[in-house]
């Protein structure tokens, strides 16, 4: 309901200002920390690709709203069979790709078949795993048949990895993406910026701005300077929270602080001694002062969590009480586990500052209860190799930014190696459960189980802080997915 109201208010404000023509400000420059490696959202995990292209250039059958809700996208509407196994999508009419070709049912079949093919290099292939067949009933209708009922299929189809591509332009997609969105790709000077131009033939409400530039500034100091010099209009997911005070004090800028899907956790290697002992895991959890970490590493931006679930989700349960900061109790638990003198372990940290800074704070907090950590700072590639695939670690800090990913706790081979048969059954049941009430209950139960098993130490929900010029309106505050939807961005007077 609230959504609907805010949507109509947006629409109203757009109507009011539409008459005024802005000679000067018809474009926007967005600062981003990471540059996409290439421009195909369907064949890489890099979030930067989605940030630039999702919903701006590429669209899927469904799409995420600013609040994380799933809305119709290129599919105008759909019907679901009673057994939940077949979805019939009715496509929007008159949609054209940027190269002028029509968007038709065959394109949907092509896109989905490509993503789930044997030799597919889609980074989220699991999203398509349940699809048994995709067929075009006519030019405007597609039928997708699933092998098992999947309550989150429509949600899956909204992901950036499930956007619609055309066979005609697929060969060049990595350097010249052709989609159906409100913006078309214009140019890319690698290492510096990507430029998008408004798609004048857009099927829906055309974008308010004429051109958008994504500028890649990995260095936080440079980001600060670029923002201060007004070289960029908005810095999305600003990388250095320590500078936010300066922006707050400056009337030219507004800070948007929203939630993300990023549960930041101190992951423990559940199969490696001593973390195979729940008491030790509990001790670690009690030894950690979440507020000190949020304050010290994130300068106050972030919400404490007690389980692996996003606090903005209606099904969230606050379980922080299960592991409130209590060093005495941590020491007692260690003693119970036979480790009264503490122990030594490794703490492997990927590059983001939440991990690097948080790691130093956690190391100090663990040292206070007798746990010595040897910190090694890793690059992502090394982290994937050593921690994620090699299980060669004791502790690590990482933010899980995929939406609704509590299911990873049901995968015993997942890097923290949590193996709980009851939990696995619970998640399997959840996947086939369609009833919203029951689903909610099961989700809450799942949160509680992993919290009470102290699988990991749950730290905080990553905040998404963006610095925006005060005059610039329509930037999403929250980040239900890694996207910067510019379709409704505009300049106020």
């Amino acid at each position, binding site marked *: 309901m609230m959504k609907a109201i805010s949507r109509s208010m947006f629409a109203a404000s757009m109507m009011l200002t539409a008459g005024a023509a802005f000679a000067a400000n018809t474009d926007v420059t967005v600062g981003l920390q990471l540059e996409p490696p290439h421009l195909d959202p369907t064949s890489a*995990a*890099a979030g930067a690709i989605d940030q630039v292209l999702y919903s701006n250039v590429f669209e899927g059958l469904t799409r995420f709203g600013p609040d994380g809700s799933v809305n119709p996208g290129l599919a105008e509407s759909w019907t679901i069979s009673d057994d939940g196994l077949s979805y019939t999508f009715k496509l929007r009419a008159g949609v054209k790709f940027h190269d002028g070709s029509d968007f038709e049912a065959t394109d949907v079949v092509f896109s989905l078949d490509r993503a789930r093919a044997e030799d597919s290099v889609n980074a989220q292939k699991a999203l398509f795993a349940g699809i048994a067949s995709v067929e075009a009933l006519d030019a405007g209708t597609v039928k997708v048949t699933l092998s098992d009922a999947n309550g989150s299929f429509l949600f899956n189809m909204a992901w950036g990895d499930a956007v619609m591509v055309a066979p005609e332009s697929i060969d060049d997609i990595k350097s010249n993406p052709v989609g159906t969105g409100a913006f078309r790709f214009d140019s890319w000077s690698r290492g510096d910026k990507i430029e998008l131009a408004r798609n004048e033939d857009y099927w829906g409400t055309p974008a308010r701005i004429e051109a958008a530039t994504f500028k890649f500034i990995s260095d936080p100091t440079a980001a600060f300077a670029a923002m201060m010099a007004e070289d960029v209009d908005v810095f999305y997911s600003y990388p250095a929270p320590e500078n936010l005070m300066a922006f707050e004090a400056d009337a030219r800028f507004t800070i948007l602080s929203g939630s993300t899907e990023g549960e930041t956790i101190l992951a423990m290697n559940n199969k490696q001694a001593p973390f195979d002992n729940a008491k030790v895991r509990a001790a670690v959890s009690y030894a950690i002062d979440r507020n000190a970490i949020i304050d010290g590493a994130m300068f106050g931006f972030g919400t404490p969590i007690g389980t692996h679930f996003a606090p903005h989700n209606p099904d969230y349960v606050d379980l922080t009480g299960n592991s409130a900061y209590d060093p005495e109790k941590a020491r007692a638990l260690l003693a119970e586990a036979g480790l009264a003198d503490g122990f030594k372990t490794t703490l492997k940290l990927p590059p983001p500052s939440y991990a690097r800074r948080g790691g130093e704070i956690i190391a100090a907090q663990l040292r206070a209860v007798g746990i010595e950590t040897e910190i090694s700072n890793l690059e992502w590639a090394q982290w994937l190799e050593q921690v994620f695939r090699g299980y060669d670690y004791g502790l690590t800090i990482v933010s899980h930014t995929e939406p609704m990913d509590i299911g990873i706790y049901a995968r015993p081979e997942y890097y923290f190696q949590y193996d709980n048969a009851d939990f696995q059954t619970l998640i399997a049941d959840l996947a086939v459960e369609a009833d919203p009430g029951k689903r909610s209950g099961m989700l809450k139960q799942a949160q509680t189980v992993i919290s009470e098993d102290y699988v990991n130490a749950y730290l905080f929900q990553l905040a998404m802080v963006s610095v925006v010029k005060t005059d610039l309106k329509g930037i999403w505050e929250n980040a239900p997915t890694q996207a910067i939807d510019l379709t409704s961005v505009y300049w106020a007077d």
Partner: protein
Amino acid sequence: MLIYALKRLRSLVLSLLVASVVIFAVIEVVPGDPAAFMLGINAQEDTIAALREELGLNLSVYQRYFNWVGGLLSGDFGISYTYRSPVAEIVTERLWVSLPLAAYALSLTVLLAFPAGILAASRRGSVTDLSVMGFTQLGVAIPNFWFAMLMVLAFAINLRWFSAGGFPGWDEGFWISMKSLTLPAIALALPQASILARVMRSSLLDTLGEDYVRTCRAKGLSKAQALWRHALRNALIPVLTIIGLQFSFLLAGAIIIENVFFLPGLGRLVFQSISQRDLIVVESVVMLLVFAVILVNFAVDIAYALVDPRLRRGR
């Protein structure tokens, strides 16, 4: 002259060959699978295998080496793993930033170092000499990235004379681009100019002490004439060596400065490529840089011959 050049050329080719083996060998052992990196943490094993196949990572080491070297020779640097576009294209794009930056910094270096070095040498022991020596001593000691940080603080954040970084692209206009390269070029040039000024000074002092300078004085040349007409050209030989080294350093060693000023140059490309395990880019760029260094050394050798008749006449 020709024989001399051919000899140098032969050792150039030999060095390149050895360098290519070394580079390939080093990069082969870098841990971290590019395919796994690209697909992230939700990827499935078969997807990664498919990508490895697509990238040609499943071939044998020898095959990959020969493919790579063969490609280099025919101008085909391969396709970047992450960017999925030809490495040659990416590198060319970056060279348009790195080369002008290196050239700019080198010009500044020479423009600062030559007058300072010559002045100090010609007035040895004077206040000028002492202050040149003092400043250069300081210049050598300052880490360039720290100096860059301080300049950003002063000129970009506080005074706002320059933008803190970034590169608008040459299409935006020559002067705008040059302006954005100015702070980085100064940060790079300051330590190099200090080194060069010191080399210039000591080299010039050495030649000023040579017998033939005394001969010139006996002919009636003033100190300044002896310096400009005779000592300077002789003093240039070690200076040329240093300039050669500095150019290659500026080309490759700008990694940190490029990061501080977020310039889309070669250094940053390599740095990013290493962390993204885009090994083919790393290999090719390192090879290119080594080639540049060796080529510059070759050019310096040839320049020696132009300066020094003894080499020119094949002795």
